[in-house]
């Protein structure tokens, strides 16, 4: 009796809609309020690196966020936000630029105004580009090149998708970007159809009203285009001198991301449920001590990249761990029974718990809100329920059958080649 009641309550919990989407004169607004003490508002713009007309423009636009606008200067934004006690951040992904403000309840008038004034009246001055934006861009580029994992995944995108999704999140170190390029890109990106507003800790009506007031002057015609993604694959080896020896074995597929891939990723994931334990992952027990294999699952709107990031202190240990990882990936074609149920449960938990955090909420539901579809978690969870042995085996064999994306970063003379790992 008790068990039955408990389970029915669970069902109700899952069926709760996370955020309702309201179309506010073209701008989609979605908000959930779970009575937390702080509010966050994110303006999600379809201005990721896949839409950029010139390499690095999206990276420049991200770093131009919160610089001077017609309403207040860059210094004014910083000082005033500090007086309110808020946090402003800009985050760039391959598809979206997310401008986020986190603040105490009641300050939404000011912070929505800060975010929207950048969208409507950013000045993009040349001296700010040279004095503030370029140095930050340079240091971010250097950081991304110093981290072999980040570098490998950047290279993997370029090989896997070439154009569009393949364009890097970072500008090249010596690019000929100008403030004018960034201004033109911003003008074409900041249009009504390209913007979604996501709020947590704020109710839908007041957020809609604020957005309507502040974004009333924004243009409606968009000029952004991106070629539909297709998967290519390939192999590259880059000499690297910092960090561990790194190999990325990636598999991509064009088309909307499937729940099967999420299940396979959860099956192979070596992250244990309890810290410092080894878990039941088929990879974790087979790799040598000191090496690590992480699953990387990156779903995009019209393609997905799935891969295994193998890192270790020497080329030989990476070779051994890579072999074990590839064997485990190939055996995922015959994933069945309890293993499959476990993988599905892990994938469900991962996507459900991600929506609890602010970043996860934006990453998971943002693109759905932009597309105007209902942003509920139910759809994701029920699609995972439909995953069966046959669909997983089909998806896994399609994945392994395609040409792999193989990246080696580090000591290239000792790191393995793709065919040496059994690919």
């Amino acid at each position: 009796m008790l068990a039955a009641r408990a389970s029915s309550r669970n069902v109700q919990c899952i069926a709760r809609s996370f955020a309702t989407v309201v179309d506010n004169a073209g701008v989609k607004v979605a908000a959930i309020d779970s009575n937390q003490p702080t509010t966050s508002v994110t303006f999600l713009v379809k201005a990721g690196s896949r839409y950029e007309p010139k390499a690095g423009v999206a990276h420049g636009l991200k770093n131009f966020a919160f610089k001077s606008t017609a309403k207040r200067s860059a210094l004014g934004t910083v000082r005033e936000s500090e007086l309110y006690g808020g946090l402003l951040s800009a985050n760039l992904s391959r598809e979206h630029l997310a401008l986020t403000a986190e603040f105490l309840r009641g300050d939404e008038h000011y912070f929505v105004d800060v975010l929207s004034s950048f969208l409507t009246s950013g000045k993009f001055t040349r001296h700010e580009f040279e004095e503030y934006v370029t140095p930050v861009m340079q240091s971010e580029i250097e950081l991304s090149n110093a981290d072999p994992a980040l570098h490998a995944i950047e290279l993997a995108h370029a090989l896997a998708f070439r154009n569009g999704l393949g364009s890097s999140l970072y500008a090249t170190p010596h690019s000929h970007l100008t403030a004018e390029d960034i201004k033109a890109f911003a003008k074409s990106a900041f249009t009504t159809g390209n913007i979604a507003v996501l709020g947590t800790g704020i109710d839908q009506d007041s957020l809609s009203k604020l957005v309507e007031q502040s974004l009333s002057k924004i243009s409606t015609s968009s000029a952004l285009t991106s070629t539909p993604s297709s998967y290519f694959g390939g192999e590259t080896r880059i000499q690297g001198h910092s960090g561990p020896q790194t190999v990325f074995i990636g598999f991509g597929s064009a088309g909307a991301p499937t729940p099967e891939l999420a299940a396979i990723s959860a099956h192979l994931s070596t992250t244990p449920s309890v810290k410092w334990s080894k878990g039941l992952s088929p990879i974790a027990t087979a790799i040598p001590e000191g090496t690590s294999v992480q699953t990387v699952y990156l779903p995009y709107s019209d393609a997905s990249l799935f891969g295994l990031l193998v890192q270790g202190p020497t080329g030989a240990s990476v070779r051994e761990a890579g072999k074990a990882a590839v064997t485990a990936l190939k055996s995922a074609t015959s994933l069945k029974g309890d293993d499959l149920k476990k993988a599905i449960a892990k994938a469900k938990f991962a996507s459900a718990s991600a929506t609890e955090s602010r970043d996860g909420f934006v990453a998971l539901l943002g693109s759905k809100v932009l597309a105007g579809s209902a942003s509920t978690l139910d759809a994701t969870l029920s699609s995972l329920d439909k995953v069966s042995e046959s669909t997983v085996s089909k998806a896994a064999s399609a994945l392994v059958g395609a040409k792999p994306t193989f990246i080696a970063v580090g000591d290239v003379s000792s790191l393995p080649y793709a065919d040496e790992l059994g690919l």
Partner: protein
Amino acid sequence: MPLFGPLSFSFAPQVLASKTLSRWVKPFAAWYAEQSGYRKYGLKYDDLLMEERDDVQRALGRLTSAEGYDRAFRLKRASQASILHAPLPKEQWTKFSEDGRYLTSHIREVEKEDNERAMWDTVSVKRK
């Protein structure tokens, strides 16, 4: 306008605001600028502004590279002419139409930013 700012004290805005006054003063101003001689050395008025100040240095950093190179060239040519104790040949003199204020707008902007920073540094906040 402060007396000790990067740009010294000027009545120009008041004079330009009045139609009659500017009609009387402008010919004299043009004659005076011609007489002061810097155009004979190929300089522009903004080349003479005092640059040994942090704010003017920041403004100089905001010139486009072409403007920066041109300024360096003019200064070098003028000092060479000064060493020779003779003005430049007449075709190299700065024409009235070329004597634009390429630096002043940048200096004004920097000055505004400095004033804003001072304002935020000393602001007293009243919470409602």
